[in-house]
């Protein structure tokens, strides 16, 4: 019997962790879908800034990919620029989220109360933001290391895992925004 596992154990662990996160959001999503059809359900319009943020986050995945290419080609400059861009886009995304939440608050849409669509919206986006902060810490760590030229050969696993986590946050966000938007429209 051959072992066919193609992952480094740590990377497999990260995939499994992502599975738990997926199940967490699946739990919330199913709760959302169940309550959507209650008579008290109201819709609201999602401020466009959240879609702008989506573009930022998608872009950050590309910058990470580009930077990681630099690492593979042993080009420290490309790695540095790529990581810095990723980190900055991540921060901008968070700032954008805060602006979006403020716009909602201005419209009188609060977490508390009987307006469940908005309560869920805050929970979904808030939990994603918490995960993104964790992603930013990781990204910040690698950016710092890259700027000090401390990313050597042994960093391949850490960088791969950082990238996997970052892309997963990206995918999660795209899922969330599409899910939330469709539920407001349909």
């Amino acid at each position, binding site marked *: 019997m051959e*072992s066919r596992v193609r992952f480094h154990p740590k990377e*497999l*662990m990260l995939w*499994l962790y992502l599975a738990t996160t997926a*199940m967490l959001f699946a739990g919330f999503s*199913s709760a959302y879908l*169940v309550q959507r059809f209650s008579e*008290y359900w109201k819709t609201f319009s999602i401020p466009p800034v959240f879609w702008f943020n989506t573009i930022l986050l998608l872009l950050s995945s590309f910058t990470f990919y580009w930077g990681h290419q630099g690492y593979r080609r042993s080009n420290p400059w490309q790695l540095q620029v790529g990581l810095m861009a990723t980190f900055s886009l991540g921060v901008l995304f968070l700032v954008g989220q805060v602006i979006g939440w403020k716009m909602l608050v201005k419209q009188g849409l609060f977490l508390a*109360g009987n307006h469940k669509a908005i309560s869920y919206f805050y929970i979904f986006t808030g939990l994603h933001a918490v995960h993104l902060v964790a992603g930013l810490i990781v990204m910040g760590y690698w950016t710092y290391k890259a700027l000090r030229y401390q990313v050597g050969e042994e960093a391949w696993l850490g960088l791969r895992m950082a990238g996997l986590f970052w892309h997963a946050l990206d995918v999660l966000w795209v899922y969330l925004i599409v899910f939330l938007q469709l539920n407001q429209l349909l």
Partner: protein
Amino acid sequence: MATQAISAAGVATHHEGHHDHHHKESFWTKYIFSQDHKMISKQFLITGFTAGFIGILLSAIFRLQLAFPDKSFPFLETILGKWAPEGRLDPNFYMALVTMHGTILVFWLLTGGLSGAFANLLIPLQLGARDMASPFLNMLSFHFFFWGTVVLLASFFVETGPAAAGWTVYPPLSALPQAMPGSGLGMILWIVALILFVVGVLMGGLNYITTVLNMRTKGMSPMRMPLVIWALFTVAILGLLSFPPAVAAFILLLFDHSLGTSFYLSDIYIAGQALPQQGGSTLLYLHLFWFLGHPEVYIVLLPALGIASELISTHARKPIFGYKIMVYSILGIAFVSFIVWAHHMFVTGMNPLLGSIFTATTLLVAIPSAMKIFNYIFTLWKGRIHLNTPMLFGIGTVSFFISGGLTGFFLGVAPTDIPLHNTYFVVGHFHLVMGVSAVFAMFGGTYHWFPRLWGRMMNERLGYIHFWLTFIGANLVFFPMYYMGFGGVPRRYYAFTEFAFTSKWQDLNVFITIAALITIAAQFIFIYNFFHSMFYGKKAPRNPWKATTLEWSAPVEHIHGNWAGKLPVVHRWAYDYSKPGMPVDFVPQYISDEDIARGVRWWEEDFDPATVIDREEPSGGEKESVVSSEPAPTTPALSLNQKPEPPSVR
């Protein structure tokens, strides 16, 4: 190809790498922040048992109340203060006791304690790995578990008392601080404790799965793994998929409780006052909770049955009957456990069609369960049964699984569940089938692997007394509950003297309480035996039970890395007991046919398995499975991994 090099280098460097384990270990790094899986296993075992004993002591208090609702026990006031004014238990505190008893035993003892202790001990040792895939995460896993315990127990010391809405904490009772004292700060602490607990369990689970997939030693193909490993592996996957939705449920509950949302709340009046929350649904909570809640039953039970497999096979000196069927049954039970959760909710007014679908899926569970029981009985059949303490507890596990499991039919079928719902029938059922059954496996596992953990034997005579008192006691406590349940006695009532149809069971309640107190007292024998044997027990030989699995090939004294030299190579499955043509009735997994031909005498007291294990050519003859990598922190061999490309493992 690359991996051959890695594993070869890994083994080679361990010779040097692991002889520098003499580095000074302080109290903190050895006992508190240990990253050694054996120490973490001990931490889980002791924390789990401690929580468990607190949990059963709580039951002693509420059993007293149920038996003698009109009597005053002044000592209760001494212990509980304002919760037992004039020696009579406060009704709110009664609810808190029931809630905390359930929470502690289901989650802390039987989920965290059981899996945490035995997965940590057995997965690396039985699979021939130096440690878990990530020892650091493993340490964190215990610390989250531990701090969850602290937060949960801290709720006994808050002004309004601990959570009191039942271990399932259904809203709206749990979601409204004004509903009852226990729904105040105690409820927040309960949720925080549970979230810490789940994080700990999931960290452990990630490790268990990765270790089983990636770190098996050479020759340890999946179908050569001991069944307990299969069970622990499957359970880790179950936890991974079912705990997060429950966390979602708890987070929404916390928001309803403290931040003014209304996910679960609608149309509620308290003291004539209408609450503003509208449009929420309690049913939503039930669905999310039981989506965890039912797999949780198997998260408890499968490791217990896995342990029973090892105990029964080893001590009956027979290979486990129907190994493959056992593996498929474990996987089958795990799969079906995800599609049965609504059988906890038959009385919620669900569509009868849906009810019958869940009835059908529930009855499906009986098929793999019955196959497992059949296999246990046939393993015992004509075996050379050694009725020592671990074996007794192993048989006890199966016995309670049968007697508790059969009543599951009544509760799994909607028409009979509806009258029995929330009666003592349910209490009797789940205590026997998952409570006592799993606790017995945990005791059995402790007696069996105690020599592996502490290098000493537990006292057999005390073990017998502990077993028989607990076995008879548990039956006397929980069997009468079936009758009470048929009589319609509801659970969670503070006193049965209020109604004619419940007060006629009063004598039986006194009987149950006396049986329960004796059974609880018997557990002190175990505590004494446990701690006394830890320091003064008879020194254990390396393989006291003459077992075949790899954990007994490692030295008795604990080495970080488990084996001083090379890792053992596996040549056979885990159950070569009483194999025809062999000189003795067991052949360990690391003994090859050449070793037997060579005349290796593995059964002798002074036989050192290292003489066989270290002789093995690491990259020779067998082109079987290869460990993908050694645990990272200690292995300089990882420098071979330092390429931009990951090691491709064939």
